[in-house]
């Protein structure tokens, strides 16, 4: 692939702190290689700001390979940008045209308050996992790995769900800011494996209760979460979550 150079106008959400008023500010990104990634383009803008002694745009990123789930911003109205099945860090500039105007905003949701500029607080996801997104097995007490066969089909489905990177794009995409896709991915992953069955009922109830408590909205089957998920987690997981939830309510004797 031969590279070309782009000149772009950016409209970036700047917000000094959680309780400050934010606004879009205009920046120019010049001479950007089409081979560069979107975040490399932002790096260049930031380095110019730094050189001028101005506060660079705060945004989060880490692995730049689409697996850590740290990066995430709304680009031209879509979480992780215009392409499907990728994170922001995997977006490359060859998908933009010279002269484009690009709007960049943080993920917006009640449960993900803005910290600064494009940085949001997604610790609510950790709290949901802490409430029940695990199998209770202490180190050392595991049986021989091959003592419990797992149907290949189920292992594959579990892996599909376990691929979630916890980035929060599903919440940002949802008009209700619902976390159902995130929660359903973990519930599905563990409900599909025999190892997860002993805690099947209690897990789903605790996770859903925590999700509600943290201010995430309800699912109304819009499907935007699936469309924007960088790991293409399927909305059928939400159907499984609902089934698991009602099954648990029906069967279990968990105290409320």
């Amino acid at each position, binding site marked *: 692939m031969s590279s070309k150079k782009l000149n772009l106008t950016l409209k970036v959400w700047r917000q000094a702190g959680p309780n400050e008023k934010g606004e879009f500010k205009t920046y120019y990104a010049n001479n950007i290689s089409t081979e560069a990634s979107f975040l490399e383009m932002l790096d260049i803008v930031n380095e110019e700001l730094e050189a001028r002694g101005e506060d660079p745009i705060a945004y989060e990123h880490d692995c730049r390979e689409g697996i*850590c789930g740290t990066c995430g911003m709304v680009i031209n109205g879509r979480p992780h940008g215009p392409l499907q099945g990728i994170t922001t860090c995997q977006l490359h500039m060859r998908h933009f045209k010279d002269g484009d105007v690009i709007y960049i905003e943080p993920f917006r949701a009640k449960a993900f308050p803005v*910290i600064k500029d494009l940085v949001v607080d997604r*610790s609510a996801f950790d709290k949901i996992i802490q409430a029940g997104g695990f199998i209770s097995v202490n180190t*050392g007490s595991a049986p021989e790995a091959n003592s419990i066969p797992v149907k290949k089909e189920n*292992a594959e489905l579990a892996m599909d769900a376990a691929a979630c990177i916890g980035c929060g794009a599903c919440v940002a995409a949802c008009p209700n800011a619902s976390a159902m896709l995130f929660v359903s991915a973990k519930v599905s992953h563990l409900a599909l494996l025999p190892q997860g069955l002993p805690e099947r009922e209690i897990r789903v109830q605790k996770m859903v209760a925590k999700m509600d408590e943290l201010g995430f909205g309800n699912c109304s089957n819009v499907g935007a979460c699936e469309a924007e998920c960088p790991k293409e987690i399927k909305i059928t997981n939400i159907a499984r979550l609902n089934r698991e939830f009602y099954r648990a309510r029906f069967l279990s004797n968990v105290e409320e």
Partner: protein
Amino acid sequence: MALESKIPSGPIQEKWTNHKFNLKLVSPANKRRYDIIVVGTGLAGSSAAASLAELGYNVTVLTFHDSPRRAHSIAAQGGINAAKNYPNDGDSIYRLFYDTLKGGDYRAREANVYRLAEVSNNIIDQCVAQGVPFAREYGGLLDNRSFGGAQLSRTFYARGQTGQQLLLGAYSALSRQVGLGRIKLYTRREMLGLVMVDGMARGLIARNLLTGELERFAGHAVVLATGGYSRVFYLSTNAMNCNATAIWRAHKKGAFFGNPCFTQIHPTCLPLHGEQQSKLTLMSESLRNDGRIWVPKQKGDKRHPNEIPESERDYYLERIYPSYGNLTPRDIASRAAKRMCDEGYGVGETGQAVYLDFSDSIKRLGKKVIEERYGNLFQMYEMITGDNPYEVPMKIYPAPHYTMGGLWVDYNLMSTIPGLYVIGEANFSDHGANRLGASALMQGLADGYFILPYTIGDYLASHKFTPVKTDHEEFVKEENAQKDLIKRLMSINGKRTVDDLHRELGKIMWNYVGMSRNAEGLKKAIQMIKELREEFWKNVKIPGDAQDLNQTLERAGRVADFLELGELMAIDALHRNESCGGHFREEYQTEDGEAKRDDENFAYVAAWEFKEVGDWVLHKEPLVFEYVKPSTRSYK
């Protein structure tokens, strides 16, 4: 100070078992009286924190990420080794031990490596029980694949996301303990300084990355699980925030640094696209199971790869190393690629790339099988390069990836500072001079799940601790030292950006302390690093406020540390007058360009003691080989 490796006596097969018996225990009721601080939440940190909390200790966990699940272990793709011998191809603990020791070019401790192999099977059991969705056969049992440096299949994997799945397993164990109130988790905290009282590690100072506030954490022991230092090269496969600050600051307080020059350059990464590049992307070594590496036989052949006929291609790894072929260990595959490109056979716009070709495998197995095995990797490749690897061979080039060096630890994983433990990639580790693929995950989890939880108890049970709270004068002193450092950084107000200086350091490291090194270049590098360090402290520019989320300041502190560590790496590489594993000194090679080891003079761990910046004292821990006699490492 003499280095005591504390390797137990007795036959190698019984060392760990006997040692566990001889370790003092902390009774269940007493464990909650001990506070342990764990820094880092990758595989090693998360698994250690969860296991210690399960045992009943009071555990505090710090991570600079917004969530423990973001740690860079998440990006490991290919797999994790274990000696289960499920494929019935002749594996055993002894063979895994042998392969790992040989793969490390005989620069690791036999006893450590044996223990690693010994606990490898427990790791797989533990992960499966946690719900890690490893790949399975149709019968429902676990599947294995091959990795470099092994002639059998012992690698467990979860598609191309094994690190992610193992980390999420450890993260779920950690989260469970947080939910139960047995772990106090502090996210967005970066450790800046170690606090010592009466010569023992008793706590640390961390910066709250959101408010800029310095916070004090006190405990009876500190565990560093903060990963490796490949970002010293600026461009590497490491995540952007990976850094050496925690181990480097501990080093400056007295923890010796082991084998700093042992760094691994991974052979299968995406080539550079240009000056705007911020990091390099790894393509899993597992691709070498089915991909064939080649260059055109004719120098500077500019034809499209698909137009170059079979007879005009040089599958150089298969040609030079017929018994391992494309699955030679990383150091060997990387150097071979560099040699081909240096000689003018490289491909792509820059000539700094070789082909990794799947067309034969697609013909043999069908596109579907290849997609099942590597689908996400192929997609990742296409996303970055715009080329479709099902139709056009991938272009790859080596990149800095892993650091075998790290803080020196004894058999108990304790550094030269009493009460300071170092686990995972952060320690100088069990990988000697080169790590085999799928062994990093194994070591991180071995340290965290099955080694540290035993050995730390012995330390706690056999020492008397004076009560130390965060108002102790040593905390005040260390906090003030860190405050001053931050103030100094913020007040320079020079002309160059942090990244600009980091890029310059990276170029020095890559050119002179990279894939091949020589005395002249290393001496030059040492001088250049010293000058660049001076330039940094005179001319760096950090906008904004220290009492705020300030990502430039975070990076500046890390680069300041890399500018010191880089010099030590060059000093270590200069002193080691031999080639071994990832450390290739041009003066020491065989006629056909292979590494020439010098067991007579260099069969030791180089452990460096910090005196002041630019001044280190070398201590040697001799390596004794009782079971595997070091031989010339041949993969031909």
